[in-house]
């Protein structure tokens, strides 16, 4: 039976994976005893130091889903597919170095971004912000589990009928320690996962560079995509709109992506938070370029018949063929590590917004620590159930990265506009904020719906496209913020400030 399921994994590989999972579970569960308050559960009591922050952020921001969509971009666009990584690196370094928005945010001593909004824009905006953050975040994360399961099934050579079981096993193992230890378990397991993940990523990349060779990698990109495979501006499927859309997304992600911000807010002080940003910035290039090279290697090695129409699975198919015994165990452990760290952080981060902001009108900060912890843990569990259900039925269409950018923009656009306005524009007020939130959420949701409906599918995909949809989202959100704020009578602003 075992032999039938694990066609690509030897007992050596299986043992490596087993030891890794056991060590992670033990470490994750062991630290639950340090969780005494909701603040410990959600932001580790603000005791996170620099190097733990770097490990945690790097591990969180690289999951199987990251590896899959990035490799898909490498397969489909060549080296130009790594463009979002360069933009993310630049954005991360700039924000960390200057403290743009993140300094006032951390100085405010809040637990989430919406909590900061309440100070300037009122409690309704805080609540509304919490809703769009959770909506965008959960839709975004909804495809993580299935993608992770598909990778493991392809690499390990499992029968596809075991996909659902693989997804469920992945989720349950992550949920157990996240529910018990919250951010503390996430940080400690992220640290272990960062090491395992990094060893696997580096080893497989060196193996690919040695076996496939640089000349063959650049040669296949030249042959398939010409100069556009190296330069996004002249790539017919990318162009300036792709670069602009991804630049906006990178800045917004660095400023407001809840998992990134949670590391800033968990840092022991503002300076440490900024250092986590600058020191991790280059990792954002690595996390893109390395899987892009894996995707290009799949393009060079696999035949079109082997790939079929599922370009997302080209990279795992390649790995299942070229990675030797022993290293396969390290690779699977690395990918499990990447996925578990991402899933646990994401489950926790959205639960922190639900508890801290959406449920704020109910608990009003007056629940006992015991009750707060119980509710926080229940929310993490509920998110786990949602992920399982959503991952099983949502039919992913088109590029995975495009789906993630569209769903992420449901809140990234408005939250980044609100955060910038909140920190640096005195005229910003609740009217502008409400307009930005509604406008910022409407466009991506409308695009997602149109993409699924047969009558509007062509218009959404081929005429508008995800890049223009994303650019429009930011432009409209910013406009709504400015117009709404200017329309609100100053007397009402003054009254709100007094309240």
């Amino acid at each position, binding site marked *: 039976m075992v032999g039938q399921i694990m066609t690509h994994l030897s007992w050596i590989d299986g043992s490596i994976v087993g030891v890794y999972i056991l060590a992670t579970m033990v470490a994750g569960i062991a630290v639950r005893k340090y969780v005494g308050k909701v603040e410990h559960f959600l932001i580790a009591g603000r005791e*996170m130091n620099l190097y733990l922050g770097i490990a945690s952020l790097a591990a969180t921001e690289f999951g199987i889903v990251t590896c899959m969509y990035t490799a898909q971009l490498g397969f489909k666009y060549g*080296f130009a597919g790594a463009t979002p990584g360069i933009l993310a690196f630049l954005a991360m370094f700039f924000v960390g170095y200057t403290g743009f928005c993140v300094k006032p945010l951390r100085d405010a001593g809040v637990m989430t971004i919406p909590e900061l909004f309440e100070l300037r824009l009122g409690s309704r905006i805080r609540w509304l912000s919490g809703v769009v953050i959770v909506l965008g975040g959960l839709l975004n994360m909804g495809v993580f589990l299935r993608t992770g399961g598909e990778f493991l099934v392809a690499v390990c050579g499992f029968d596809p009928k075991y996909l659902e079981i693989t997804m469920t096993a992945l989720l349950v193992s992550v949920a157990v320690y996240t529910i018990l230890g919250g951010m*503390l378990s996430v940080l400690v397991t992220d640290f272990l996962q960062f090491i395992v993940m990094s060893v696997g990523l580096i080893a497989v990349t060196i193996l690919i*560079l040695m076996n496939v060779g640089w000349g063959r990698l650049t040669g296949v990109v030249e042959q398939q995509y010409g100069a556009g495979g190296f330069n996004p501006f002249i790539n017919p499927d990318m162009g300036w709109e792709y670069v602009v859309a991804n630049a906006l997304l990178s800045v917004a992600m660095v400023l407001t992506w809840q998992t990134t911000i949670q590391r800033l807010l968990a840092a022991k002080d503002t300076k440490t938070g900024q250092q986590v940003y600058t020191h991790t910035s280059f990792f954002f290039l690595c996390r893109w370029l390395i899987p892009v090279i894996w995707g290009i290697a799949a393009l060079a090695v696999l035949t079109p018949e082997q790939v079929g129409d599922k370009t997302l699975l080209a990279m795992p198919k390649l790995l299942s063929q070229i990675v030797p015994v022993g290293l396969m165990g390290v690779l699977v452990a690395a990918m499990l590590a990447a996925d578990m760290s991402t899933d646990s952080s994401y489950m926790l981060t959205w639960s922190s917004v639900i508890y801290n902001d959406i449920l704020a009108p109910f608990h009003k900060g007056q629940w006992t620590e015991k009750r707060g912890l119980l509710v926080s843990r229940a929310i993490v569990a509920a998110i786990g159930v949602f992920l399982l259900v959503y991952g099983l039925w949502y039919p992913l269409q088109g590029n995975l990265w495009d789906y993630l950018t569209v769903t992420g923009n449901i809140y990234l656009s408005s939250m980044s506009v609100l955060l910038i306005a909140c920190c640096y524009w005195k005229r910003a007020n609740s009217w502008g904020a409400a307009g930005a939130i509604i406008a910022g959420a409407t466009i991506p949701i409308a695009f997602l719906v149109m993409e699924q409906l047969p009558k509007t599918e062509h218009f959404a995909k081929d005429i508008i496209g995800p890049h223009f949809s994303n650019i429009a989202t930011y432009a409209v959100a910013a406009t709504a913020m400015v117009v709404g704020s200017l329309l609100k009578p100053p007397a009402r602003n003054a009254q709100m400030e007094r309240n």
Partner: protein
Amino acid sequence: MPEHWIWWTLTVACVVWYSTITLYVAIRGAFDIKGMLGRLSQLNDEPEK
């Protein structure tokens, strides 16, 4: 210099930087965890005193 030297330089930089930072963060991060758990342990004990 290899073909497409910009991408070659970025690739080499990624592999070298990532290898180095992994080792460094692995060592320093372990001390960070020890310190964090120690401080939280103290904080959790304080109200009982």
